[in-house]
């Protein structure tokens, strides 16, 4: 491979590949939303668009060598800790210190749970609306719908 291209890939694409993926996915979604004639295809584009952003958020919470952010205290230490809660405050503090580099940042992931719910309800509502469009126009192709509106409507 040409060394310039290889260099470019190594410097700009490999370390930032999560951003590249989300941008590409987003552009696919945007393209579908703008150019597709079928309303359902537009909605698929919308879903891809929203999913790209979810991917972006999830990827920014990830850390190198970071695990799932669940803290388990199931050893004997834990039981001692709860018993000795009132007396040994300093010891208690020591147990509560969490090495944040070992865990992925859970906050963006939690935010995306909400965003997924929002995305699902938007998609559901949009599908219901397209069902109503199909009922009243008999088609889901945008140009055919606009043709049907042309003679009567003064738009």
């Amino acid at each position, binding site marked *: 491979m040409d060394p310039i291209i290889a260099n470019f890939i190594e410097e700009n694409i490999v370390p930032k590949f999560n951003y590249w993926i989300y941008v590409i996915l987003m552009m696919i979604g*945007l393209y579908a*939303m703008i150019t597709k004639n079928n*309303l359902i295809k*537009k909605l698929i584009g*919308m879903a891809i*668009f*929203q999913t790209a*952003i979810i991917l*972006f*958020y999830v990827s*920014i919470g990830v850390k190198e060598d970071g695990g799932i952010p669940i803290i388990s205290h199931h050893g004997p230490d834990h039981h001692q800790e709860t018993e000795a809660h009132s007396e040994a405050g300093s010891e208690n503090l020591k147990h509560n210190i969490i090495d944040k580099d070992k865990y992925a940042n859970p906050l*963006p992931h939690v*935010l995306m749970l*909400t*965003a997924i719910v*929002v995305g699902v*309800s*938007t998609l559901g*509502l*949009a599908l*219901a*609306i*397209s069902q*109503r*469009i199909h009922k*009243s*126009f008999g088609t889901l192709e945008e140009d055919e*719908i606009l043709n049907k*509106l042309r003679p009567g*409507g*003064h*738009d």
Partner: protein
Amino acid sequence: MTEHFPILILLVPLFGALIVVLLGRERPEQCWVTSLVSLGISSIISLFTIIVVFSDKVQTIRYRMGGWEPEANGYEVGIELRVDILAALVVFAVTFVGFVNTIYSKTRAEAEVQGKVPFFYALIQLLIVGLCGIVMTNDAFNLYVLIEITSLTSYALIAMGNRRAVLSSFNYVIMGTIGASFYLLGVGYLYIKTGTLNIDDIRMVLGNDNLWEHQSIVVAFIFIMLGVWTKMAFFPLHGWLPNAYAYAPSMTGTFMAPLMTKVMVYVMIRVMLWLFGYEFVYSGQHVWKELIIWMSVLAIVAGSLLALARTDIKKMLTYLIVAEVGYMVGGAWLGNVTGQAGAFYHILSDAAMTFCLFIAASIIVLRVGDSRVNAFDNLFRKMPLTMIGFTVGALSMIGLPPTCGFFSKWYLISGGIEAGQWEYVCALIFSSLVNAIIFFRIFERAYFGKIAGVKEDLSPSDSDANPDTGIKEVPWSMLVPLFIASGFVLLLGIMNRTLFEWIQTALEVMNT
């Protein structure tokens, strides 16, 4: 008690919506009363909030949801609601317009959305919850969720109309989702750099770590602005608005036209001044200030001309909204307190006058049976009370004293002169002139229209018209909201000095 006001404003319509849905199965006739009561309570609470916030002791009410206290280093943990005088004014506008609009929808709801009346009232209350939440929340991600709540409810409300409304609702879904997603993306970039979502904390971190010139922050700002502009129908991104508001059921249009875009303008001002701050937004090294003022000039001119080209009264009013959004964006970007306060005052006055005009237009379209201006012959004779309300709104849109439209334009123009942005001043004056043409065209029709048409109008089919005068007004439930709205147009105009000083003081704090 007073510290719980912000959450009560949200909770009363939220539970009102749930009750309305449950009531709808057995007693659909009680839905109207229920939502009237819940929105009435909500607007009374927001009126008291203005009083509490304005009294010197409490400048800002901060309400931590779930009682999450901040961490030891001062960063917020939970979601916070924050109400200052500006937020309190906008929240009052939202809840009060909602209340008055519910009075208006008494007879229209059954006529226009048969069989879905309970759902209509539930959705409109959820929409009010979302709008109030947008204004009050102090959490950037929570703001996104609330924007989506308002969007989802408004898609559904618009889709309750005829088949044109369903189609425009679909376009609104596509555009609205793009807008909200861009906002979310911007928040993501801010979160990467600052590690917090609370608006005050983001500002603090940006200041402490001096991140202003970092590219991520600039990108975040641009994404958030693009998202907010799509939502507020700023000129090149306005495509979804005219059809959606014109074809929606009339009581939906009267509610959303005055409020949705205005609340998003408030979000823009808030993001500019609270989140990013004066120095970042207006600093000389970014080219965007000049560019955006030119874009707003374009929005004003294009909105006015597109409105002039319409003969359908509702379409015309929706294009006027596009022009008004241009006023507010331009005013906010002038970079001085007069312009910002003018833009903020215009949020309130535009809400009042758009509400007034939309109610009047809906009544006229209902009575005349035709939405084209050419059909409005002799309306002053046929429905004088409605036309009084319409005239007040129209004069305010043109900008004649003592209506609020005059004063907001006055402050915006003085801001433009202060900033030396003459193109903006010219655009405002041009838009005023175009508005004068648009509305005097209607006045001429309605006042001097074909006199010969009088006999025609007294045909036997008009059985409920007064045989002596030919006056045929609509029921009180539609006239009272119109008069409340036109009363507010005048009241805001008369109180302009006081209001403007409150707004100015609140904004000066933010700019320092």
